[in-house]
């Protein structure tokens, strides 16, 4: 029975906090800047003459290359296999010839193993078929294996291997499958267009996900600025699926897993825990659509939808771009201004600034935001913290970023972690966004967390000796 609009029955043993409001505490409202691309349909991007595929496109071990230089490959063919459980394979995004296997740059500034493919100029770029997986007959394990074999990672930006996320730990149960169609990052309209144009793939993907997780109900969470997508998906709910579409208020970082669980279920994910601790699994809507499109054909991921926008580009839009397309090629095709001076992969709140245009589009690239030289008005002057409390009012998990920032400066890492819950910070950047003194708070926290993790690892290593 479809449960549309209102929410379904909740497990009576759970503590329900704020089901009426469908939101979370605190948060910020950055300018959305979505109107320039949210009406533009997804368009196929041209195939770049050269594809450069890094083997590290996901969190985990890099994929192991199984092809050789000079080999001709077909679109969708397996190029590199998963190197262990915490890894996914890489498929050929184009039909072409492998020119080189060498180190290639990635956004972090490091070099990683990669494959250069020269695209066949006159190929029809037909994708080869694999072994289909049927959601009705396949076991949950088979579906998870199928998701791994398709090279699927979280397309919302994190690029965490989806099959690992979907694996329900021993003794735990998934009641609620949450499909994340929030897209709270300014500028990005990728998920918005996917929801409007790939509803069928999304619902097929949900069938696979229900089978894999054993979920009893499905909630598709969508922010209020995408009412058209919510209406569209509500209309198309298959009669046999327990799906609810829930519109939630627009607020950053609503799309963060923990915040979405709280808004939809009224429950908090325990500190240090995962949504499964409150019987929920959260999957990005574009990832869901990708599962629904690839698994029935046993294919691997070759391309993804990316919003290209920002004042620095002429042909803004939502494009279906082959993975491995060089960023420089993409920018040339969309008419980026000659004087571009800032490029972000992902949105402006959590995305990463590009320092080298020779990197490629990867599976986790949800958007490219480009600013020209004249579009940047930033005051870089940093003032001391005046304890105004703006960060305290912004932090979605009620940390005290002001205090944490002062502690980070004096290297009080142990106090930060033990007394002020630093490790719960998921680096949404709301504190830095509001800080009138321009203090790079979230950057301090990223560094501090890294140092604490390193120290802890050293401690464990010492204890084991």
């Amino acid at each position, binding site marked *: 029975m479809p449960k549309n609009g209102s929410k379904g029955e909740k497990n009576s043993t759970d503590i329900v906090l704020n089901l009426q409001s469908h939101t979370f505490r605190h948060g910020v409202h950055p300018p959305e800047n979505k109107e320039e691309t949210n009406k533009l349909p997804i368009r196929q991007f041209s195939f770049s003459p050269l594809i450069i595929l890094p083997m590290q496109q996901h969190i985990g071990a890099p994929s192991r290359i199984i092809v050789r230089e000079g080999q001709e490959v077909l679109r969708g063919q397996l190029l590199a296999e998963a190197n262990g459980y915490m890894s996914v394979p890489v498929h050929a995004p184009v039909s072409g010839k492998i020119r080189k296997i060498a180190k290639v740059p990635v956004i972090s500034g490091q070099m990683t193993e990669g494959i250069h493919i020269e695209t066949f100029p006159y190929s029809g770029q037909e994708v080869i078929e694999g072994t289909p997986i049927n959601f009705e007959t396949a076991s949950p394990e088979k579906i998870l294996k199928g998701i791994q074999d398709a090279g699927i990672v979280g397309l919302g930006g994190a690029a965490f291997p989806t099959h690992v996320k979907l694996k329900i730990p021993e003794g735990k149960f998934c009641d609620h499958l949450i499909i994340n169609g929030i897209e709270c990052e300014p500028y990005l309209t990728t998920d918005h267009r996917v929801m409007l144009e790939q509803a069928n793939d999304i619902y097929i993907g949900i069938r696979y996900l229900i089978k894999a997780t054993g979920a009893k109900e499905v909630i598709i969470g969508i922010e209020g600025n995408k009412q058209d997508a919510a209406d569209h998906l509500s209309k198309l709910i298959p009669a046999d699926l327990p799906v609810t579409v829930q519109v939630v208020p627009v607020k950053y970082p609503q799309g963060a897993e923990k915040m979405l669980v709280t808004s939809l279920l009224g429950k908090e994910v*325990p500190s240090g825990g995962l949504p499964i601790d409150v019987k929920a699994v959260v999957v990005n809507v574009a990832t869901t659509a990708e599962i629904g499109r690839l698994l029935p054909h046993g294919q691997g991921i070759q391309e993804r939808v990316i919003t290209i926008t920002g004042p620095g580009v002429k042909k803004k839009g939502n494009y279906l771009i082959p993975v491995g397309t060089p960023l420089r090629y993409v920018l040339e095709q969309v008419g980026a201004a000659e004087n*571009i*001076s800032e490029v972000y992969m992902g949105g*402006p709140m959590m995305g990463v600034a590009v320092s080298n245009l020779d990197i490629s589009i990867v599976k986790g690239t949800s958007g490219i935001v480009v600013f020209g030289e004249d579009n940047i008005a930033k005051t870089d002057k940093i003032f001391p913290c*005046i304890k105004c409390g703006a960060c305290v009012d912004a932090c979605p998990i*009620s940390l005290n970023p002001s205090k944490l920032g002062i502690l980070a400066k004096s290297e009080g890492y142990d106090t930060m972690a033990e007394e002020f819950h630093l490790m719960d910070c998921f680096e949404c950047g709301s504190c830095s966004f509001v800080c009138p003194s321009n203090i790079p708070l979230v950057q301090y926290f990223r560094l501090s967390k890294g140092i604490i993790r390193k120290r802890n690892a050293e401690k464990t290593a010492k204890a084991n000796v």
Partner: protein
Amino acid sequence: MFSKTLHISTSPHIRQGMSTDMIMRNVVYAMLPLVVFSVVSFGLNALLVIITAVASSVLTEHALCRWSGKSSTVSDWSAVITGILLGLTLPPIFPLWMTFLGGVVSIAIGKFVFGGLGSNAFNPALVGRAFLQAAFPVAITTWHPSFLEGRFYSISKSVAAFPFSTPVVDGISGATPLSAFKFDKVTADTADLAFGFISGSTGETSAVLIILGGIYLAVRKMMNWRIPVAILTTVFVLSWILHIIDNQVYPSPEFMLFSGGLMLGAVFMATDMVGSPITPRGVVVYGVFIGLIVVVIRIWGGLPEGVMYAILLGNALTPHIDNLIRPRVYGTKKTKS
């Protein structure tokens, strides 16, 4: 193509756009009507006092920055606020050399020794004023009636007193409503109090203008409105209860609210972000505490006015409030770790 070097920054790449110097500048704007009213009601004497306070604060800040080899922080406008606040809390005929000294102490002892903007435990202007009150108890309680005939151009002998000389007490000095009540049990008219047709410190007399300035800052989210609301509510409720108990001994709540430096202190001094708690619940505790101390000093203390000490005590309590009152972190059970 794309030959320019790319800027890189860490996320978030966009900012809300409010800046610390912008907040400080707006606090100055919110106080300007008080300065103007002060000059209208007390004449050029008041203007000289305020200008001297601002000049000495800014000069001290600049000189100390230079002396310690840092770049000058005068441009963040916080020294200007300290100067104006100090000027507004002094009697309109306060000797200028004492005013100047007050500005120096405010910045040097109240702010610089703690580490400058953001590190000061106490409101710097109140530190300066506390020093002046201790050093020159007579001069700082020598008041002057407002709207005197020919007040505007007459420079008081007291204002122009030569440095380190004892100022001559003017023949036209008048008591403030608070001291009149304290020592002679004379209450002033509420409308006079609200609009400022009374004697008092240069900037504390017009409650209406102070409230308007506070509303301006609160609407622009540059001031925590909970602080003045908590202080004023506490003072009102407490003095109302006392007034019911015995209306001969205890003044009316309206009188308590609109007299003395309460309005100015609650809106512009207790709200100093640096010295007030950071959480919404913390500021309420802070405000209630200040209100309580104000009533206690005014009613039972030896002084007619207690706002300055109440706020300084509140400032001292702030780190402890922040330490004790911590919001429950998402996903954790208890408030304290």
